């Protein structure tokens, strides 16, 4: 009897172990970081949710969600509110630093038509480099003080660089480097993590509720949201960068914002840009 019990117990243990081992690869596969599959699922989600919206129109944010707003925006584009900033950016971009060099010396193709490649993962540094960060590093490398990341000069420079890239499809690469995959995954985690007293994540507004109103605002879809940056916002009465958008989103949900260009913000921009690959650059944009 004892022997029979022992055999039964041993068989049960082996069966349990086999089940555990069989289940392990499934769990591992489920947890595997797969940006290609993520981007495909992300884009499909928005196409299915808004079957009437043309794919390339998602970059127009709330205007793609609401016909009345779309018409108003088309009229506004006759005399766009970001124009003054664009002109300022163009002038700043060509004006030499004190050492005689210009921004063009810091970027591939002289900085023209390259917005769609930012942010990128720098394998030497092991971190994500955004366009705003690259611009300030360019200034510092040439003996100039860095600009505020959130508005004015930085918005003007990025507005000009986006304008020269309009229509080019977002083209973010994730190199075969575990650090790049980790940065992408951390960005995704940040995007979906609820924070602040209101317990909102980025996805609460921009995945679960695009097209809905939050007070007077129509929420933009997350798909293509970074393609329109920087933006003129009537609410701000001025221009704002991607950094400004992230920090103000955090404040609005009663979370203490991180510092612009902290790793979390760089990673979430990397994630959002990657899943928007293929959509055209439309910046600078204008928003209510």
């Amino acid at each position, binding site marked *: 009897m004892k022997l029979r019990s022992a055999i039964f117990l041993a068989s049960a243990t082996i069966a349990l172990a086999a089940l555990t081992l069989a289940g392990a690869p499934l769990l591992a596969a489920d947890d595997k970081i797969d940006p290609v599959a*993520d981007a495909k699922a992300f884009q499909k989600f928005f196409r299915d949710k808004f079957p009437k919206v043309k794919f390339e129109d998602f970059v127009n944010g709330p205007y793609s969600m609401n016909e009345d707003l779309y018409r108003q925006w088309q009229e506004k584009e006759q005399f766009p509110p970001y124009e003054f900033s664009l002109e300022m950016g163009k002038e700043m971009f060509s004006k030499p630093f004190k050492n005689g060099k210009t921004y063009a010396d810091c970027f591939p193709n002289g900085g023209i038509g390259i917005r769609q490649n930012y942010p990128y993962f720098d394998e030497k540094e092991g971190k994500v480099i955004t366009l705003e960060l690259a611009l300030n590093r360019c200034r510092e490398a040439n003996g100039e003080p860095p600009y505020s990341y959130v508005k004015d000069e930085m918005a003007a420079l990025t507005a000009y660089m986006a304008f020269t890239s309009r229509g080019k499809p977002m083209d973010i690469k994730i190199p075969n480097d575990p650090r790049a995959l980790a940065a992408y995954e951390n960005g995704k985690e940040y995007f*979906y*993590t*609820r924070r602040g*007293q209101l317990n909102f994540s980025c996805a609460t507004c921009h995945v679960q509720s695009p097209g809905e109103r939050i007070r007077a605002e129509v929420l933009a879809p997350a798909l293509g949201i970074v393609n329109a940056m920087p933006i003129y916002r009537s609410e701000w009465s001025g221009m704002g960068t991607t950094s400004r958008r992230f920090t103000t989103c955090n404040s609005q949900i*009663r*979370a203490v914002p991180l510092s612009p260009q902290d790793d979390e913000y760089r990673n979430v921009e990397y994630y959002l840009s990657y899943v928007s690959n293929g959509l055209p650059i439309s910046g600078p944009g204008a928003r209510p």
Partner: protein
Amino acid sequence: MRNLMQKSALVLSLFAAGAVPALAAGSEDEFKAAYAAAEAANKEAGKLRNQWTTTANTLAAAKKAADAGDFDKATASAKEAEALAKASIFQATSEKTRWKDLEVR
């Protein structure tokens, strides 16, 4: 009985002699302890990169009330700030796995 009366008289005379601030000082101690606990919890939330603006605002309100000498109000605000900070810690901890529930797959 006589002893008790003597003690009561002593307490009354202490009040009359201005011993009330000594009781208020007790309230100040209570505020200091509550404020320190709230600050510690908020610091922990900071380590988790998940502080709430409302915690900071409530801590500031506690400090302001204490500076004005209203230690009851200050202590209440400090306790509220601690509760907010603890809620932000709970949120950050639970979201370590819960964020995946929202993910588009």
